[in-house]
């Protein structure tokens, strides 16, 4: 007995935990519960880290999340872990339940353990529902509008439920505060307590044995089963980490209650509920929104009381396999149907506001300069900001700032302006060279990276903007004439469809307009409209 153990009993406790006796048949199938607990802890940890840089009010929430994604070092990874961890937790909890269900491990005396498990599943879903709103982007806002409307449709309790969620009049500050409070203050301790009770019950009754186990000597949890749990946790974490690094979690634009073009969708694991709702209309809607999901939860809770027979081998539990297969098929069918019916229009160009968006501040001319810079392959001889040294000088770090006129002369006859230069002359029109010079004059080591990150659709649109000479009538980002209306803030004034139709026939929508019609290909139209909508207010 060590000094510490004598005073705290910690070593004895750990030993008791590790040397718990488990049935001889225990194996890989029992690892899911451990993964779920581990993922819950990862969510708590990454959630706390996010909270350190997050302001839980509408507007500020969005800006602070953008700050986490674009400025805080490692912020992208932490948010990725939290986002994908949530999806993974749902998957693992469902796998855990499926395993217990298929093996009949919920049977007497383990009914209470099962019921707690069902409640934990509901809590996991509650995290998903409340956490979905917290980025406060358009997707989050509209998804939550639908969710709170469903709460309103509950018979009798509807109005109270909706008031409780703060969604009585509209989704706004009160809803946000309620969802945030649930997500970070109420759900975590409730989940922690239930997990502790769940594990206590597992220990009290022991891991459920399979038929035949009573004849075999019991095993210890450590080391073999402890190794299996660790290996499974390690594999799950490796997948989660790779997803957090490699798969971008997009952030859409700020929530916009006036947007009429969004098709609200919940997160993937709620799509089946979303689809179920579509089968019931009018007064029957409550069947899809409340009664069917309620019955499903009730059925889950009653499983151990309906199936009360002797424990049999898993291979003989055909009914359980049938029920699980039916549930899987139903879930898959509903989810696929929901995905298939998600409209693709208006989403052809997706802008990730979680990436640096400095390019939105550029004038169309400068942005077109980015396009010429890329098309002329300038980067093959010139470094821009960070990167290994090249033949030509680093353009973001030219010691003496030249004028635009000097640069255009240099583009046309490089050696005449810089004796001995081996740069080939650039074959572009004067207007195009102007754009290129305008872009290069904006370059500094600090913004070079962000500028070169300008997405292709915006650059293509800016090139089109230049070639159609839109700036002769319109002002964008402070550059251009004021004959037509300024283009900044277009997203607030018009819908995308309106703008697209206006291009094709301006006079039909704005009588008396002197704007000529423009025939763009559908790709060009998508680029152009999406680009114009990124112009800041």
């Amino acid at each position, binding site marked *: 007995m060590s000094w510490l153990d004598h005073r705290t009993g910690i070593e004895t406790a750990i030993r008791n935990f590790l040397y718990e006796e488990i049935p001889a048949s225990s194996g890989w199938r029992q690892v899911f519960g451990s993964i779920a607990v581990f993922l819950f802890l990862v969510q708590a940890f990454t959630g706390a880290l996010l909270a350190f840089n997050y302001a839980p009010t509408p507007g500020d929430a969005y800006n*602070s999340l953008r700050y986490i994604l674009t400025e805080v*070092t490692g*912020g992208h*990874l*932490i948010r990725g872990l939290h986002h994908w961890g949530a999806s993974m937790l749902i998957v693992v909890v469902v796998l855990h339940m499926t395993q217990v269900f298929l093996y009949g491990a919920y049977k007497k005396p383990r009914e209470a353990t099962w019921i707690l498990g069902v409640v934990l599943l509901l809590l996991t879903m509650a995290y998903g529902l409340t956490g979905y709103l917290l980025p406060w982007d358009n997707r989050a806002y509209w998804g939550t509008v639908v969710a709170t409307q469903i709460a309103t449709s509950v018979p009798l309790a509807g109005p109270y439920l909706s008031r409780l969620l703060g969604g009585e009049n509209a989704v706004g500050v009160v809803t946000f505060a309620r969802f945030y409070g649930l997500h970070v203050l109420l759900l975590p301790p409730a989940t922690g307590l239930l997990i502790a009770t769940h594990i206590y019950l597992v220990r009290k009754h022991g891991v459920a044995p399979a038929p035949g186990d009573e004849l075999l000597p019991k095993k210890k949890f450590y080391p073999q089963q402890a*190794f299996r749990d*660790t290996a499974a946790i390690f594999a799950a974490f490796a997948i989660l980490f790779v997803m957090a690094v490699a798969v971008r979690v997009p952030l859409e634009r700020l929530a916009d209650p006036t947007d009429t073009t969004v098709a609200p969708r919940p997160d993937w694991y709620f799509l089946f509920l979303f689809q179920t709702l579509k089968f019931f209309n009018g007064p029957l809607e409550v069947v899809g929104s409340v009664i069917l999901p309620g019955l499903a939860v009730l059925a889950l809770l009653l499983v151990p009381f309906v199936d009360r027979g002797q424990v049999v081998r898993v291979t003989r539990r055909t009914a359980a396999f049938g029920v699980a297969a039916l549930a899987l098929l139903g879930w898959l069918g509903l989810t696929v149907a929901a995905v298939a019916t998600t409209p693709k229009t208006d989403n052809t160009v997706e802008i990730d506001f979680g990436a640096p968006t400095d390019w939105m501040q550029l004038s169309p001319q400068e942005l077109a300069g980015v396009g010429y810079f890329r098309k002329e392959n300038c980067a093959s001889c010139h470094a821009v900001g960070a990167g290994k040294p090249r033949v030509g000088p680093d353009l973001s770090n030219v010691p003496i700032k030249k004028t635009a006129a000097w640069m255009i002369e240099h583009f046309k006859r490089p050696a005449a302006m810089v004796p001995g230069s081996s740069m080939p002359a650039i074959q572009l029109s004067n207007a195009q060279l102007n754009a290129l010079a305008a872009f290069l004059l904006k370059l500094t080591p600090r913004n070079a990276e962000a500028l070169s990150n300008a997405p292709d659709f915006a650059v293509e649109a800016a090139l089109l903007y230049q070639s159609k000479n839109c700036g002769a009538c319109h002002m964008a980002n402070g550059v251009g004439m004021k004959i037509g209306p300024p283009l900044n803030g277009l997203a607030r004034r018009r819908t995308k469809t309106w703008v697209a139709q206006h291009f094709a026939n301006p006079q039909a929508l704005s009588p008396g307009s002197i704007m000529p019609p423009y025939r763009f290909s559908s790709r060009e139209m998508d680029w152009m409209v999406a680009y114009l909508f990124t112009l800041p207010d």
Partner: protein
Amino acid sequence: MPATEQPEEQAEVSRRGFYAALIYGMWSAIVTALSLPAAIYLLLPPKLRKAPEWVEAGDVSQLEPRAPVEMVFRQNRVDGWKILSQKTTAWVVKLSDTGVVAFGPQCTHLGCAYHWDDSRAEFLCPCHTSIFAIDGAVVSGPAPRPLDRYDVRVENGKLLLGPLRESKGKA
């Protein structure tokens, strides 16, 4: 048969050791992969969003030599995800015909606001009685270094202030 039992026991011991090594190895990898990004996230500075800019603090054409003036001006400051426009002060002194210096408004000891005492012709800090000379040098008190200075530029009689630089040198 003790002869056959012993190798079995040994095999059991090495098998346990093997499992233990794997368990420890995997948990250390997981803990590292979580704590290292967390440390980076919390401890490294965020990317710079705005280059420091020059702000106009006031008119220095009428400034009397060796008579410090407190100038109040608005400055944009990056605060997390916000850019705040806030009031800032500087103590501006014309030390010679050509040289104007602007001191940051905080004592270099613990950041209290000091002020100019006309009768003593010294800067006094009310907190721990640090005293600075008109050129910012420490005269007495606990201040560890001279007053910090803004980068300054005078254009057409207007004083432009750049970033505040921590002063070098000892008390």
